[in-house]
């Protein structure tokens, strides 16, 4: 039965992928792409990967759709297509078909789904499943693997988010000396939207904090919670105006906080080096945190690291949105 639903969802995903490429209107294409992400999220939920599904729902279906809309707001929603010049299309078609062929070649080497005899399920997974709770006292295995065993990967993922926001910010930023074409920084005077968002934003932020702090016990963690917190700021920027949200979190402070998030993660991992352990070995924190053994030190360290991730991701999402929507001027938005 479950397999039936998943087959249906996969067929829908394929249809949506083709449709989103086929539509000429880029705005509709973005909406279809959001639906595609949401269906992928449902598929991952069906496979039991709830953490991944959560990330996909928050990032893929939620915030990235907003980013695409913000880009379309400053560019055009029509594809510029010259029917005489097909060289770019032919080149990308060859590239796509070649990549797809290579991926299909590799498909036969993948283990079948849920195969207990597969190589990855016999060595590493078994070790994590058997010893993660004993060594860290964290019931959510995904968080334990993500923030403790594979902390190196997560640290550089946080750096990737930071570098992404820095790149977009620096590429789009205008220095402010050039005159503005039109000054339409008018406040959104719609009372209903303002009141509703004023009511919803505290609950969204509370939920974001819950997702960050409760990532040990339930699906969630720094990335998802950070995206939710960033989305609440984006909602404020949309419902009010961009000046109002800049008073809450200015662009300078946004960059500073994004740096601080990375520093929290890396610094928390660097401290064990001075205590005679290796980098990111949280068990050394037992000497500094009062009343904790090596096991609980690892558990608490994961929370600290997740907070760093959440701060960086929140400021990253906020900064990317602000850069894209105002074309680097930070004066007016959607």
């Amino acid at each position, binding site marked *: 039965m479950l397999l039936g639903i998943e087959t249906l969802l996969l067929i829908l995903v394929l249809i949506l992928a083709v449709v989103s490429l086929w539509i000429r209107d880029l705005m509709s294409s973005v909406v279809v792409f959001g639906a595609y992400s949401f269906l992928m999220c449902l598929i991952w939920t069906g496979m039991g990967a709830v953490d991944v599904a959560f990330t996909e729902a928050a990032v893929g279906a939620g915030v990235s759709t907003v980013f695409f809309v913000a880009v379309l707001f400053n560019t055009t929603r029509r594809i510029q297509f010259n029917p005489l010049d097909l060289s770019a299309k032919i080149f990308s078609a060859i590239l796509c078909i070649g990549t797809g062929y290579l991926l299909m070649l590799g498909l036969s080497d993948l283990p079948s789904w849920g195969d207990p005899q597969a190589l990855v399920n016999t060595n590493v997974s078994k070790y994590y499943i058997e010893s993660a709770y004993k060594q860290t006292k964290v019931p959510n295995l995904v968080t334990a693997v993500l923030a403790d065993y594979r902390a190196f990967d997560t640290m550089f993922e946080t750096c990737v988010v930071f570098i992404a926001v820095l790149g977009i910010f620096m590429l789009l930023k205008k220095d402010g000396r050039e005159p503005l074409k039109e000054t339409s920084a008018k406040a959104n005077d*719609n009372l*209903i*939207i303002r009141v*509703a*968002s004023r*009511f*919803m934003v505290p*609950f969204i932020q509370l939920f974001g904090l819950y997702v960050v702090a409760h990532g040990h016990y339930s699906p969630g963690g720094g990335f998802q919670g950070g995206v939710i917190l960033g989305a609440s700021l984006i909602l404020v920027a949309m419902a009010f105006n961009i000046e109002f949200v800049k008073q809450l979190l200015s662009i300078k402070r946004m960059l500073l906080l994004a740096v601080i998030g990375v520093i929290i993660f890396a610094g928390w991992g660097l401290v064990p080096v001075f205590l005679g352990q290796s980098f990111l070995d949280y068990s050394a924190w037992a000497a500094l945190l009062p009343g904790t053994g090596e096991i609980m030190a690892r558990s608490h360290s994961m929370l600290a690291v997740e907070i760093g991730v959440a701060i960086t991701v929140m400021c990253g999402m906020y900064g990317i949105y602000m850069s894209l929507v105002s074309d680097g001027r930070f004066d007016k938005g959607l």
Partner: protein
Amino acid sequence: MAINVLAVILFAIISQTIHHPTVQLILNILIMASLGLGLFFFFATSVGVLRFPDFFTRLHAAGKGDTLSTILILLACSLFSLKSAKTLDQTTILAAIKILLIINFIFIGSPTATHALIEAGYNSEIDPWENNATRN
């Protein structure tokens, strides 16, 4: 919000304490009716979005029908999770209340989003549909 939390707790107490078959039947019918109504309104919403003539009437169908049907289906889910629990423990009630919080969120968010869309359409001067067939 406090009202529907109280209503769910009342429902939970009734479904767990009174095991008389008539009461259980009524509770089952309540769940099935709200689920069925939700599905009906969802179907009506999709028909409305496809069949109505212009932007405003389509959003009229989408905004109202979508909100009501989502609320009804989620309410049925929440009641069903309470009804099917063998013992009434903290986890079940918390799950039901979480679903109710989602209902509150949709109840505020979905009509506001529809309102924003309608206003955006109004400001960009989309011509509303007029029934020319009866006028001529």
